[in-house]
């Protein structure tokens, strides 16, 4: 039977569990940090020694942990890119700018168990020789920022943070930095610019890979809240043991944010790949199915930027059967909820946020809603994205306000195809195009029917006015 597996959220929702340090300590808090700080260098067969820091970094690599923010990139590999020979300080930033529509998992950690994040951060900082770190929290979480500040003060008072942590000689300071309502700050180089006190214009890569030229042009690690929490558990369990959770190449647990038309929306922590998309939506342990009398229409599987999936869609998934690679036809609801399966289905698990839409949804309206979001949030730096996201939103606004056209589907597709693919500095170009491309491709009939009906009606009502509307394009 598919069920939750609570690692990160083990205690968060227990009755009586509070976000203060005493409660955290009663539940085994900061033991992983003590373990990490007490690690001894290991003598290797070739006579070299492996420092505790290297041991932790190798363990994170061994654990197979992939970033929980959206890209799903190997956390261990990300750390291994850090330029440790530059002589410059290394910074670590926790990305708590949770703003991908559909996602509300980091909110739970920050508000219910802030010390878990802080412990994960201190260990990660120790492992990477970081002495100054920041938590970049979105501006719309003022209470979260206060809770984190309070938690940091408590950790400082107990000697887990500050100068000479637990008498080991290791110094670290962590500060909370608040964003101010811009989605683009979730993009790591935009976040860094914002933390430098500038507009959050993402930087071009190369050369500005944060691991080399990040905050103040120094090597910088940017990790998601949930990712940093996992580091604590990797130290507790050991990387090899952690890697047994989940499925190969998709290890550990993940907190899934489930919203939209299910009976039990909410956040559910699962072993990655052990539960299918269909189970997350329909099983009584999770979403509990659609509202009565409704049928599934579409699923956004990994935050609003991920490509939409249509009910009934089939995919060819590569599977290993008796050691051989075979392709298995898989229904959308049977897709294991992990990084690789969703990628094979042409979409992504992104920030693990599932938005479910039933047959009461006007799919054109849904896309118009998302496109308005992207038009509002484009930072404006690159022309294809700044203009394209607005054009798409305007066209969809027309289409949802009785002024659509038969060829709007083609028009939207044309714009969406011309934004991404290296034409913009950051992946926002992709993020705003993918929903449009996938919605239009998979629900083309609905877009055409709506546009054609408008065109017909407007032609009969006021032919002259229709001509004037060409100016909107």
């Amino acid at each position, binding site marked *: 039977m598919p069920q939750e597996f609570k690692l990160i959220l083990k205690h968060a929702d227990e009755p009586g569990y509070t976000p203060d340090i005493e409660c955290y300590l009663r539940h085994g808090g900061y033991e992983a940090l003590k373990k990490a700080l007490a690690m001894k260098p290991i003598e290797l067969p070739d006579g070299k020694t492996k420092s505790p820091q290297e041991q932790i970094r190798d363990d994170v690599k061994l654990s197979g942990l992939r970033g929980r923010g959206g890209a799903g990139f190997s956390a261990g590999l990300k750390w291994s890119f850090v330029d440790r020979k530059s002589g410059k300080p290394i910074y670590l930033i926790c990305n708590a700018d*949770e*703003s*991908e*529509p*559909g*996602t*509300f998992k*980091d*909110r739970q950690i920050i508000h219910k168990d802030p010390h878990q994040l802080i412990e994960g951060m201190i260990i990660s900082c120790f492992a990477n020789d970081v002495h*100054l770190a920041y938590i970049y929290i*979105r*501006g*719309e*979480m*003022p*209470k979260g920022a206060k809770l984190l500040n309070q938690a940091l003060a408590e950790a400082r008072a107990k000697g887990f943070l500050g100068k000479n942590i637990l008498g080991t000689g290791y110094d670290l300071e962590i*500060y909370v*930095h*608040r*964003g*101010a*309502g*811009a*989605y683009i700050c979730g993009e790591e180089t935009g976040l860094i610019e*914002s*933390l*430098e*006190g*500038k*507009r*959050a214009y993402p930087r071009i890569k190369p050369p500005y890979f944060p691991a080399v030229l990040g905050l*103040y042009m120094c090597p910088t690690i940017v990790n998601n809240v949930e990712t940093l929490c996992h580091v604590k558990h990797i130290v507790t369990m050991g990387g090899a043991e952690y890697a047994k959770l989940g499925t190969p190449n998709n290890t550990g647990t993940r907190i899934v*944010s*489930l*919203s*939209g*038309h299910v009976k039990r*929306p*909410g*956040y559910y922590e699962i072993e990655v790949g052990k539960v299918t998309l269909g189970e997350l939506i329909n099983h009584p342990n999770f979403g509990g199915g659609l509202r009565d009398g409704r049928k599934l229409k579409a699923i*956004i599987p990994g935050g*609003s930027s991920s490509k939409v999936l249509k009910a009934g869609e089939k995919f060819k998934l590569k599977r290993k059967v008796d050691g051989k690679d075979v392709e298995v036809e898989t229904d959308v609801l049977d897709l294991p909820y992990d990084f690789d399966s969703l990628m094979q289905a042409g979409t992504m698990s992104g920030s693990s*946020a599932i*938005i479910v*839409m039933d047959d009461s*949804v006007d799919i054109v309206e*849904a896309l118009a*809603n*998302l496109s*308005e*979001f992207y038009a*509002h*949030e484009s*930072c404006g730096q690159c022309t294809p994205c700044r203009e394209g996201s607005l054009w798409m939103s305007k066209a969809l606004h027309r289409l949802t306000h009785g002024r659509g056209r038969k060829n709007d589907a083609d028009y939207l597709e044309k714009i969406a195809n011309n934004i991404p693919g290296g034409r913009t500095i950051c992946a926002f170009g992709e993020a705003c195009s993918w929903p449009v491309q996938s919605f239009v491709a998979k629900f083309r009939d609905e877009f055409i029917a709506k546009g054609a009906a408008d065109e017909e009606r407007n032609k009969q009502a006021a032919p002259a006015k229709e001509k004037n509307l060409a100016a909107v394009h």
Partner: protein
Amino acid sequence: MSFTVPPNLEAEIDELITHYPVKRSASLMLLHAVQEHFGYISQEAVEWIAKKLGLQPINVYELVTFYPMFRQQPVGKYQIKVCRTLSCALGGSHELYKHFCTKLGLDPHQHGLQTTKDGKFSVEFVECLAGCGMAPVMMCNEDFYENVSTAKADEIVSQCK
């Protein structure tokens, strides 16, 4: 109008600046601190912050115009932010937004932030507030509310004294 920063706010600001190896980094935190105290960011505030951080006023002003949370005009004593994005829209945020507007005598069809004549309430649609599973969600000043029905909305309004 003269712009005076009270000593306790200035002390808070001076402390914030110490968090960063480069002063300019403190810009957003200073803007938050000033906006929390004065309710909005005036031209004088921009100039004051710039001076404090050794920047040109444009370096600060460009932040005020870029980041949606910063205001250049006073807003209502109670700022109601209703989430507009998809999950909340599916959960009834448009009805909620209209309800607030109608109840407070504002135009539900007007785009952008609106403030009641008595300056007590501001209402606006904002983008995803990261509460999608508890849709529709909203904020009233610093307080975050989930599963907001129109009845709950009335209750929230009645609690604003």
